[in-house]
């Protein structure tokens, strides 16, 4: 068994760009990283997703070398870099507040890393201009400007160009879109993805915004209280959350508690059929996405079918959010406004809701309290 694990590591390290092995980091009494193991592949857009204070930024700073882990190993391109300072690691980083040097022009900012690497001046100029082209900032216009003369989105692009121009093995991004307006943020998300595809560099992206993570990432690690809750593709973490935390943090969910017996959960409002390999007799919680619930006639032949009173309807443009009371439990249902019965729904009415056993996002064992 041990042998096999070892062998796996060796083969995986070749294609893994970043490996965090058993990382522990404490700040005083707070454990920011609790035995974290993550492997990030070459050319991957990898996100560290979690609420604020979950320890995701600490992990990024450990990869960068800005924090030293108390325990564990950091491997970059197959090389142990745990004890190397940032400037000896082949990385680039985009900071939360961008950290553009205010006393330098855009050109000087981007040329900074190249100058330190002693590139000849004509090579520096060429590379800086290429980097500006890559992030769609016409060099003739912007090269001579100071960061304070740029808009938020433009500063963003310069920060990315500066971090990429030295051709690092990994680009680390620490919530770089946080300060931008919604529209620009959405646009920059697509831009980041485009840039990543163009240059092919491994991106490690820290965010607390599940939307950003889902849109851009090849894979996501969900971080909670210093631990990795789940690593998977956006599809996996959304559709197949492995813990209740993941189901709750990513997207929206209805949660029903009950006792699991013979493929069904006894809840306060009735039996719910589920697919689960948890032992019979355990206390469990079911996660069910609001968009998976059918209403009206469509609910007719569902495996799980209940009737309840509509408590509230909220119009959101593309969907109606309908709150349905099943005994003492309120269920949130998303009904597309294109649904044939959508216009007839009214508060106070009795309505049927239903879903099949496979529609549940997950069934999780509740820890004994």
């Amino acid at each position, binding site marked *: 068994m041990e042998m096999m694990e070892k062998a796996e590591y060796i083969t995986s390290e070749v294609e893994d760009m970043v490996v965090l092995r058993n990382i522990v980091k404490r700040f005083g009494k707070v454990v920011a990283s609790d035995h974290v193991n993550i492997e990030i592949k070459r050319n991957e857009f990898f996100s560290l997703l979690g609420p604020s204070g979950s320890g995701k930024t600490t992990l990024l700073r450990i990869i960068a070398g800005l924090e030293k882990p108390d325990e564990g190993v950091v491997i970059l391109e197959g090389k142990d870099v745990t004890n190397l300072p940032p400037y000896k690691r082949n990385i680039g980083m985009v900071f939360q*507040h961008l*950290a553009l040097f205010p006393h330098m022009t855009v050109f000087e900012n981007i040329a*900074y890393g190249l100058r*330190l690497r002693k590139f000849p001046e004509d090579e520096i100029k060429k590379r800086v201009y290429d980097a500006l082209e890559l992030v769609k900032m016409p060099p003739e216009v912007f090269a001579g400007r100071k960061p304070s003369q740029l808009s938020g989105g433009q500063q963003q692009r310069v920060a990315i160009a500066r971090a990429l121009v*030295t051709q690092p093995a990994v680009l680390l991004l620490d919530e770089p879109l946080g300060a931008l307006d919604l529209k620009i943020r959405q646009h920059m998300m697509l831009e980041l993805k485009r840039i990543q595809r163009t240059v092919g560099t491994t991106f490690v992206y820290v965010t607390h915004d599940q939307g950003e993570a889902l849109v851009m990432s090849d894979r996501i690690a969900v971080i909670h209280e210093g631990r990795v809750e789940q690593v998977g593709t956006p599809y996996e973490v959304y559709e197949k959350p492995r813990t209740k935390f993941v189901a709750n943090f990513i997207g929206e969910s209805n949660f029903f508690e009950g006792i699991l017996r013979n493929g069904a959960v006894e809840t306060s409002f009735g039996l719910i059929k589920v697919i689960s390999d948890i032992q019979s007799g355990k206390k469990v919680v079911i996660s069910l996405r609001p968009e998976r619930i059918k209403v009206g006639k469509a609910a007719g032949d569902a495996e799980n079918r209940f009737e309840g009173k509509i408590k509230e309807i909220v119009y959101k443009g593309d969907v109606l959010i309908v709150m349905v009371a099943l005994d003492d439990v309120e269920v949130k249902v998303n009904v597309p406004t294109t649904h044939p019965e959508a216009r007839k729904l009214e508060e106070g009415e009795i309505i049927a809701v239903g879903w099949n056993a496979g529609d549940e996002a997950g069934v999780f064992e509740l820890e004994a309290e």
Partner: protein
Amino acid sequence: MSIRDKVMGLYSAFVYAFLYVPILIVIVFSFNESRTLGHFTGFSLKWYQVLLEDKVVWVAFYNSLNVAVITTLVSLLLGTLSAYGMIRLDIGGKGAIDSLLYVPIIIPEIAEALSLLLFYKFSGYDLGWLTVLLGHIAFDISFVYVVVRARLAGFDRSLEEASLTLGANEVQTFLKITLPLSMPGIIAAALIAFTLSFDDFIKTAFTTGPGFQTLPLIIWSQSARGGVGPELNALTTVIMAISMTIAYIYARLTMEKQ
């Protein structure tokens, strides 16, 4: 603007006039042809002429400048060192050290001045240039410390981290990022150290000895018992012009940061 706002604006204008009219009067009468106060009989530079020909004034001017320049250089070095140390070093007892560095600003000048005098007498110093200088430096270190520290504290640490991730080591980062960005704070501190020393009176009066005079001491001894006069107005105008110009540059520098 409502009437209330206008009244407040007018009141403020009055207060500014209160601050600046006395200074203007000194300047105006330094150019007055006659000696009589309150009557401007004609424009003349003759009082400045008198100043220029006064050897005592020249010596005092040299002394003031000499003390102020050396004070500025030494307190800048020591004050900046302590500010960097306090912000960047990872050591215990910082709170206590910080309080120690603040004390000279809080203690009233006259108390500090007389204790220096007692110290010099006790230790057998000869009062004069050196004793004045040493006292000025002790006071200015704290001001430099406060000004530079404020600049460094308002400094985004991730700028230095960015430099590290771009391939610069700690020394390169300090030279290319930290130092240039803290320059405005260091310059501001130098300006403030200079003015505080250049026009200082009380500490100088207590710690100087026979034969060492600075410009403020001349004003003091000549204006004693209410002796205002055009020569003194001219001298005051010159010192104020120097101090206020430097203070103005300092004020602009610190305002820009915001």
